[in-house]
């Protein structure tokens, strides 16, 4: 089983030189820590920044510089500031190459639910609906099962959805999976110490198991 940090590390291997990337709140934010320094990418924050840097030193904290998770941040040389309309013009216009975000549920057709639990949670969708309806490539980072043990990889989402047929890949604590265009979770890699049987058991949606399933490589 992978820790949150290891999920982030595995996702970092999907990143290619020259990409503009939007990282969601939670595990996706951790991905930034594992991008190799020789790969140059630019992180977009939908509140109006291209070029997110590391968290600042205490003395450099600037309340006028935050990310979309409202965390204080620094900026890197070559960064730029813009308003919210311009920010989503970038996202909607397909200029952001990769979106990595968390989810409460993913369906075997790539639908995603991550913004609402009826009667319980009403925080809102923030920028997630814009991101998933527009991004060229969407990777979901999440636990394979919820805290009470229910699979989060489903035939269809039970929660109100954020977007339809948009997720391309999912990295969980148990596995790396790809959405099959005609439906189904294709098992690409399994976490060290996790059997295919366990993944089958914990995947409520249709799991497609190819002949070869590699172990996730975290080096």
């Amino acid at each position, binding site marked *: 089983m992978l820790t949150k940090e290891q999920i982030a590390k595995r996702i970092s291997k999907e990143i290619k030189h020259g990409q503009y990337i939007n990282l969601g709140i939670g595990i996706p934010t951790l991905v930034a820590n594992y991008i190799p320094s020789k790969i140059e990418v630019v992180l977009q924050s939908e509140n109006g920044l291209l070029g997110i840097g590391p968290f600042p030193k205490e003395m450099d904290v600037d309340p006028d510089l935050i990310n979309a998770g409202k965390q204080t941040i620094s900026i890197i040389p070559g960064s730029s500031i813009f308003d919210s309309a311009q920010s989503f013009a970038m996202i*909607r216009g397909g200029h952001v190459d990769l979106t990595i975000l968390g989810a409460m549920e993913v369906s075997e057709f790539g639908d995603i639910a991550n913004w609402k639990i009826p009667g319980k949670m009403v925080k*809102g969708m923030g920028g997630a609906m814009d991101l998933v309806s527009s991004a060229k490539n969407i990777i979901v980072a999440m636990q394979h099962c919820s805290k009470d043990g229910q699979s989060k990889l489903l035939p269809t989402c039970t929660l109100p959805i954020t977007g339809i047929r948009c997720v391309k890949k999912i990295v969980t604590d148990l596995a790396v999976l790809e959405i099959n265009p005609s439906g189904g979770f294709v098992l690409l890699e399994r976490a060290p110490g996790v059997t295919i049987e366990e993944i089958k058991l914990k995947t409520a949606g249709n799991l497609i198991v190819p002949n070869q399933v590699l172990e996730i490589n975290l080096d």
Partner: protein
Amino acid sequence: MIQKTVKSAEEAVADISDGAKLMMGGFGLCGIPENCIQALLKKEVQALTIISNNAGVDNFGIGLFLKKRMVKKMISSYVGENAEFERQLLSGEIEVDLVPQGTLAERIRAGGAGIPAFYTPAGVGTEVAFGKETRTFDGKQFLLETGLTADFALIKAWKGDTAGNLIFKGTAMNFNPIMATAGKITIAEVEELVPAGGLNPNEIHTPGIFVQRIFQGKGYEKRIENRTVSF
């Protein structure tokens, strides 16, 4: 140059009354019009409709309006971080219209730009699409969304001049420039107010035409929601 200066936040908001529809700049607590918020709290106006990306936190920003029950309806994309808000919402004391953040931004820009409606992919196939026209362009589905305007837009900039020109700093920009365009009356508070001509015309983010009143704010707290540092 046309002069837009008013003396104080109190003077700026004097004609905002019960039932007004307000846009308020800021993302979380970053770039919010702190002085106007204080002045409105003192006035205790009621039944406000507020268009703002967030609803502040329990004890700061728009959260203070919620505590005083000044808000009838919020139009926002994300209203977490606020227990009192969640309580009022679940109990039905407050209406809320949740709008995808990019759609919210574009609707505000459209309102200010005289675009009555536009198509966007955000929300297709979700609850957000209920009751909205769906239309296919080039094989992809889009929703029809309408422009938004407000009686007053309350915004916060870094620098401004007496002609109403504004410059923002860092991510405190966010929704402020687009809301400036969409208020029938736009009130800008700035950290530093200079005479017209004191700003470089090429560096101005919001041209003065969009601003009806401007004043130099004071005592900015700039609270931080998630202070995160590296060592």
